[in-house]
């Protein structure tokens, strides 16, 4: 694990405002990415993290379709159909970029060279199991893309998601009921309600947003601890 320890060293309950919105959540993830990291941002919500990285962060973005040094989404004349990200969105190239083929790109991932990847999820278990590729619905067409490769490849896997589904059931669960993407791979879980550290020792709440550790503990089916406990 390469991530910096939590800056506060103890659990912080942010009660002055409500749960984080998607932008606020992306800002928290960006804050926790160490300077100079090599980072892969998954399709969808994780791409918002890029907007919150400081210009001098030295963070280098990897896209699994064969590029390091990916820049922001391309606009207008800069759109080039040969230059896209994993979500097939036209992007740009930053100075110091490089291109490589798919086997090299995934060797980079599988070989443990990426410091952090940020993914979305349907469910995450208390020990860090990840389910983010398949709802298990019988009529769904399975499609995995690079999710399993990222899950086992990056030194740290961060997940961004809402803590509760629309029906109020927690998505941080004792055991994933959706098909798994990877075992014990998520180290940090960033949600609108709280930031969790996950690992073999279980779930630690590092921060809460508009709620308390005790309130969360009452709503979750996994035991949670505070930092330093």
């Amino acid at each position, binding site marked *: 694990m390469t991530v910096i320890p939590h800056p506060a060293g103890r659990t912080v309950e942010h009660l002055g405002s409500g749960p984080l919105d998607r932008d606020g959540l992306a800002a928290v993830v960006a804050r926790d990415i160490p300077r100079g990291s090599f980072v892969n941002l998954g399709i969808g919500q994780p791409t918002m993290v890029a907007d919150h990285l400081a210009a001098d962060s030295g963070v280098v973005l990897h896209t699994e*379709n064969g590029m390091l040094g990916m820049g922001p989404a391309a606009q207008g004349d800069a759109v080039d159909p040969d230059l896209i990200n994993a979500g097939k969105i036209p992007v740009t190239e930053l100075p110091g970029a490089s291109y490589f083929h798919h086997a090299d790109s995934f060797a980079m991932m599988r070989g443990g060279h990426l410091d952090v990847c940020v993914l979305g999820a349907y469910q995450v278990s208390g020990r860090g199991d990840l389910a983010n590729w398949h709802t298990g619905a019988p009529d769904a067409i399975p499609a995995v893309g*690079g*999710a399993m490769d990222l899950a086992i490849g990056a030194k740290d896997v961060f997940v961004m998601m809402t803590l509760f589904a629309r029906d109020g059931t927690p998505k941080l669960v004792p055991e994933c009921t959706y098909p798994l993407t990877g075992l014990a791979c998520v180290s940090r879980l960033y949600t609108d309600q709280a930031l969790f550290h996950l690992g073999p020792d279980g779930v630690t709440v590092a921060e809460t947003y508009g709620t308390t550790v005790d309130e969360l503990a009452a709503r979750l089916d996994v035991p949670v601890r505070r930092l330093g406990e």
Partner: protein
Amino acid sequence: MTVVTGEPDRAVDGIADGSTVLIGGFGLAGMPVTLVEALIRQGATDLTVVSNNAGNGDTGLAALLAAGRVRKMICSFPRQSDSWVFDGLYRAGKIELEVVPQGNLAERMRAAGAGIGAFYCPTGVGTPLAEGKEKRTIDGREYVLEYPIKGDVALIGAHTGDRMGNLVYRKTARNFGPVMATAAALTIAQVSQVVETGELDPETVVTPCIHVDRILDLSAAEAAS
């Protein structure tokens, strides 16, 4: 020796029914659309197609699927906003699907091209995609045994070729092309332009000519049409 042609139909001549066809591209970037269209005209059927996606819209790979030529798709991400052709065939039970994690897709083709018999891969351990596969713990980590994917034919898109068959690509359109070129018995590349032998810098060649059997020169194809 590599054959350079401006005729799409000549480029895909002789592809047999039942072939395993590797088709490059990630979405449309690097997708050899002209070659796939020629393959539809050529008529080979009962194909197994290996490609990252399972077709977009109604052209290229989607048109090949719609023409009923594909028995089985091996890909990482069939489901896309514009994959209605595949979706319909799949839901109607008219096509087989093997979903492979994207890195395993690349590495299994790389293994085929590199003469590796099989490899232990950490991707997918504990997931449904590893079910029924052989497992082994090495140095305390679990791995799944994965086998090569070899193509009878590879259809790839590149940017520039020379007359000997060396290829360079452009930006993220490189993607699966260089790997597929090594993994097939017959590799056919469509390129935007062909230059004389010696014009490509030997330091920057991405796919050496040994991996390329035929080049379709799109600039010549357009000039002729």
